[in-house]
């Protein structure tokens, strides 16, 4: 402060605007990007929830019943509903991006992207049906 500013020849100055921490609020697509990235936190929570379930099953029938009662409490329900929304967003964006990551050639021709995405959705339906069948079938 107070020092007069001089330009000196051949000494370039940094011209680098400082980015705001909230840069991602400026556009919908940036918000969607950050929402997709934040899904990672909810993936970690889902793993913890699953492991707590497995532990309760290992501890006996009573613990399993208590786990289901605990899962129905408002706070846990809220966390799980939010987690489900983020994880479904992760799944949809992941499947839709699969054609960009995976290029498959059949008989010298490139397989169209929608087939790659469709095969991911088919795998999702198959895996979900298999798990539901193992648990309920």
């Amino acid at each position, binding site marked *: 402060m107070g020092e007069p500013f001089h330009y000196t020849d051949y000494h370039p100055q940094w011209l680098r605007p400082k980015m705001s921490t909230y840069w991602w609020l400026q556009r919908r697509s940036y918000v969607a990007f950050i929402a997709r990235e934040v899904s990672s936190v909810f*993936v970690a929570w889902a793993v913890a929830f699953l492991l707590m379930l497995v532990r309760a099953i290992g501890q006996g029938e009573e613990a399993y019943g208590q786990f289901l009662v605990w899962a129905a409490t408002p706070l846990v329900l809220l966390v799980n509903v939010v987690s489900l929304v983020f994880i479904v967003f992760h799944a949809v964006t992941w499947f839709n991006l699969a054609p960009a990551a995976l290029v498959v050639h059949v008989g010298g021709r490139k397989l169209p992207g929608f087939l790659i995405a469709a095969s991911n959705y088919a795998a999702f339906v198959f895996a979900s049906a298999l798990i539901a069948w193992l648990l309920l079938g």
Partner: protein
Amino acid sequence: MLKRHPEPFLWLLFSAGGVAGALLIPIVLVLFALAFPLGWLPAPEYGRLSALVAHPLTRLALFVACALSLVHAGHRLRYTLYDGLQIQHLNEIIAIGCYGGALVGTIAAAYVLLTV
């Protein structure tokens, strides 16, 4: 000799975990976080679940899915913090925290699945 970078390997694990999470977590959450606790569907009987969890293949599958999902989450969180919060100078601490967290979670998963 070429210096080996861990980054490609981490991206590979990230992808594998992304697939595992996308395929498996939604149905598990829909059933065990909503449908069974809220009584939309009758919860599976204890004997069935306990037999399912006791099977070594189930436990192996759960371990692989949990470990990959945790590494996926740690890796993605690392880059979210890096890009989102403009704290590049904390790079090493963030990487240690994210992968360390994934490692601790993986050890916890192994412990839970081995002691069931």
